[in-house]
């Protein structure tokens, strides 16, 4: 149940599995309001991450080391908008997780840093129908659990649930950032692919913490 280096590595493997499974679905979401490559992009990226993890001689010392490896791998293999966004998210997260293990506040710090990375690069705010609409409620939920004395695991669960709800809540939104924005009102009525994959990544973090 501890969010340590082994957890971080499991998180990424769980994510890779989940993305592979959801690939067609993510791509279909992106086909409708984007260009139909989001599932393929992330699958390519997380397969590369898995390969990198497989290639490690020994596990790194700190959670941040894992996240940094994830960041650089995603940046160099995903492409598209989501590549630099997720890449920067994990890079910023790595910077605040130079620890062998995370407590509840460390977990919040990770999520917060990730969100900051995404908004620094992408300049989106809540309500623009992007992955920010999943990350922001996730950060908020984790924060309130942590400040209420919850465990790191509790914080993660709350984040994942909030991200899922946030992703679902993108359906009625009008996109004003990213490729979907070109559709104007036709972007309404469809769930954002990036918000959906964010929910998927955070759900994988929870699973990884439970499998141990």
């Amino acid at each position, binding site marked *: 149940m501890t969010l340590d280096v082994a957890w971080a590595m499991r998180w990424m493997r769980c994510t890779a599995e989940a993305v592979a499974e959801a690939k067609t679905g993510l791509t279909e979401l992106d086909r409708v309001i984007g*260009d139909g490559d989001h599932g393929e992009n992330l699958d*390519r990226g997380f397969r590369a991450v898995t390969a990198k993890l497989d290639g490690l001689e020994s596990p790194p010392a700190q959670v941040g080391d894992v996240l940094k490896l994830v960041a650089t791998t995603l940046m160099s293999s995903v492409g*598209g908008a989501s*590549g630099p966004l997720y890449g920067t998210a994990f890079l910023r997260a790595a910077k605040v997780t130079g620890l062998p293990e995370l407590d509840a506040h460390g977990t919040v710090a990770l999520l917060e840093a990730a969100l900051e990375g995404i908004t620094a690069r992408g300049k989106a705010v809540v309500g623009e129908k992007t992955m920010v609409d999943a990350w922001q409620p996730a950060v908020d939920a984790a924060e309130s659990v942590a400040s209420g004395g919850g465990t790191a695991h509790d914080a993660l669960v709350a984040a994942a649930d909030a991200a899922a709800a946030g992703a679902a809540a993108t359906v009625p939104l009008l996109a004003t950032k990213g490729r979907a924005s*070109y*559709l104007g009102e036709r972007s309404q009525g469809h769930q954002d692919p990036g918000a959906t994959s964010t929910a998927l990544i955070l759900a994988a973090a929870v699973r990884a913490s439970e499998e141990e």
Partner: protein
Amino acid sequence: MKKLLNDPQDAVKETLEGFGAAHADLVTVHLDPAYVVRAGEPRAGKVGLVSGGGSGHEPLHAGFVGLGMLDAAVPGAVFTSPTPDQIAPAFEAADSGAGVLAIVKNYTGDVLNFETAVELAEIDDRQVATVVVNDDVAVEDSLYTAGRRGVAGTVAVEKIAGAAAERGDDLAAVTAVAQRVIDNVRTMGVALTACTVPHVGKPSFDLTDDEIEIGIGIHGEPGRHKVPMASADEITDQLVAPVVEDLGLASGEEVLLLVNGMGGTPSSELYVVYRRARALLSERGVVVARSLVGNYVTSLEMQGASVTVLRLDPELTELWDAPVHTAALRW
């Protein structure tokens, strides 16, 4: 989906291999990471020109690598921006010491990935300027969108900036002329059919047999609106009007008229569109001084076309006319 491909995952790589073999006199193709550079060493003192973007728009960009145009091109996966680790070595290969101009089409993915690559280049003390091409008038309200997209006008930017670099302009001057082209070029496109990304296997959007998509992008993303199928003249009217209006063209001005095919439309139809577009411009007293008709910025096998108008001035015309020797553009 029927395509002349092997494993869809290998499509970009195998295209590059074929391209490199067919044009070994012009380019050197690198595969891991993937980028295409002019054959030979970069000419000392010449500003390097690098562009890139998702694959599936061939001949853009690799087909424009060569004398008088690009020094390097960086192809991403199909319709997906390339990654910084591809872009950075392309910058390096293009840099003879006089700096590099990156020509980026305005898509969030392209902008973010090039931005990251520029940050990497700066760490290496490499001087990289960036221009962002956004000629697509289909995106009306750029306050509420990611901004106008870069589409077929990119060819004019690459050609003219390439000529400026070739004649010895410095980085600031090449950047300025590229920006002048961007400021004066506008495009509007139409799709009669969608296209199919190889690894997706189904059309990128849905169109019935009697509708067309006006204001189409070049990444398989849907356009501004669907309208009923119409005659070539009626469709061309819908493409030319917003372009002319946005440019604010006045009688007596000279322009370059580019009718670009989306990949699956025969050139005979492109000339029918050209004929009408030229007539509409002439009606307004606009002089079509230069023309280009063909497949230059495509969307795989999509059927459709775009109309691009570039307002010319004597210097832009001279740079357009300057020699170019690439796989896809040569004079």
